[in-house]
């Protein structure tokens, strides 16, 4: 029987792929840091009723890998936000397009993000979730850019610090593509 070759996205073979400046974080870098974060979270949340919330879509791989490094019976759920247009370009509002299915009242919530820059989106989500009366709410982000932070949000766990680079892969996209790269690449701004 013919063996089907491994299929991994190779940007160098794709004509319209974005130009990669460098691999910012390799698959190995990511997996090793994710395992460390998993151990820290397991230690800190031992004995607590933990709900881990994935903010779609950029966080999907980080969430999948991180939750499998958590040695606790955590509940997992998903949220997504989007822009609802208003009557003019200036009056649209950000709204939750996929809400939680689980009740978080009295439970310890850990929101998982791929990257926190200004903190506006995560701030919006934290504000919304706090109104539901959780016992605590914290944020775990794979990438953090504290220099761009505008809103004082509770980032308790961070994988790597980044600057203002343009990044893609491991969940992060450009026009909905390239999320399925197993590493994070820094690309030229198009």
């Amino acid at each position, binding site marked *: 029987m013919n063996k089907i070759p491994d299929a991994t996205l190779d940007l160098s073979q794709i004509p319209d792929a974005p130009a990669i400046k460098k691999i910012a974080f390799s698959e190995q870098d990511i997996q090793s840091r994710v395992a460390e974060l998993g151990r820290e979270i397991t230690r800190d949340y031992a004995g607590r*009723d933990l709900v881990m919330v994935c903010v779609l879509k950029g966080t999907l791989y980080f969430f999948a890998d991180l939750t499998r490094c958590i040695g606790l019976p955590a509940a997992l759920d998903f949220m997504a*936000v*989007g*822009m609802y247009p208003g009557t003019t370009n*200036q*009056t*649209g*509002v*950000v709204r939750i397009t996929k*809400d939680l*299915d*689980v*009740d978080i*009242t*009295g*439970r310890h919530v850990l929101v998982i*993000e791929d*990257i*926190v*820059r*200004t*903190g*506006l*989106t*995560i*701030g*919006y989500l934290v*504000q919304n979730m706090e*109104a*539901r*009366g959780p*016992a605590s709410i914290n944020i775990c982000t794979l990438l953090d850019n504290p220099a*761009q*932070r*505008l*809103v*004082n*949000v509770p980032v308790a766990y961070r994988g790597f610090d980044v600057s*203002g680079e343009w990044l893609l892969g491991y969940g992060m996209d450009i026009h909905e593509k390239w999320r399925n790269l197993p590493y994070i690449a820094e690309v030229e701004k198009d």
Partner: protein
Amino acid sequence: MTVITLSRQMCSLGDEIASELAGRLGCQLIDRGNFLQQNLQDIATPADLRMLAESPKYYLREALPGSTFKQVLEERLQKAAHGGDAVIVGMGAQIIFSREKGALHIRTIASIKKRSARVKSQYRVSAGEAENILLNADKRHKRYVSALYGADNSDPALYDLVLNTDHLGVEDCVQAILALKEERERPKNPNEPEICPDEAPRKPPVFKNTAEEEFAGILNMYQMDWEYEPKTFPISWDAEGNITSAFSPDFYLPKFDTYIEITTMNQKYVTAKNRKVKKLRELYPGIHISIVYKHDFNSLIERFKMTKGEEQ
């Protein structure tokens, strides 16, 4: 006439509180079960009633020429309530009566742990089954208010009082609601302000430049409460203690205890402003202040346009 609406999470003691409250006030208790049976019989067949119990969207079907079940329900609920005092449980009454002068809107909640324990004891089910029952009930309540009114029933802004029954009993909650009702009905001194200063209509801020205005627009998009230049911090004093220099950050986000200063001007002014912010941080070490420089502001706007609001 006083209408008290009560929205409740399943097993948060909402039904018990509503029943006790109606008894104390000697008024009618209106809940979905009795109301639909008694008030929609003339327009709804048994099959309609079953569908209304199952699917919120069924309420949007035409029940009478030109009126949906939802509209008929609202009209009849209002008519029933206007016959005297009433405690109304569920049915989106917090929204139907949101503009009713003097109405009190109450919500009862409790932790999943507490509610689960109540479900277990009430229905004799396992912990897992109890959680599933609660999950389904919460979803259905949420879906009903969302489908009929486009609102989130867990939004505290819909209520005058949210009671957590983890540590409060039925009596505690009834007393709290009665105290609030009494306070509402107390004749007010004509000199007493009708509304809290926080609720007084504020003048729209006069922004110094378009960047500030655009930034306020972004905060509005994220539904973040903000105040414009709410505070001035003294940052230097002369030998006699007179203030010689002060700094008023442009925005304050009370929920996040964060000040934001927008700086899209020339570099020579930016340096002076940086100095002020540095001084501010030294003098007020607990303060959270972020500066948005011209470059940051432009990239924020650019990212915002690219991702249609999903900027992080």
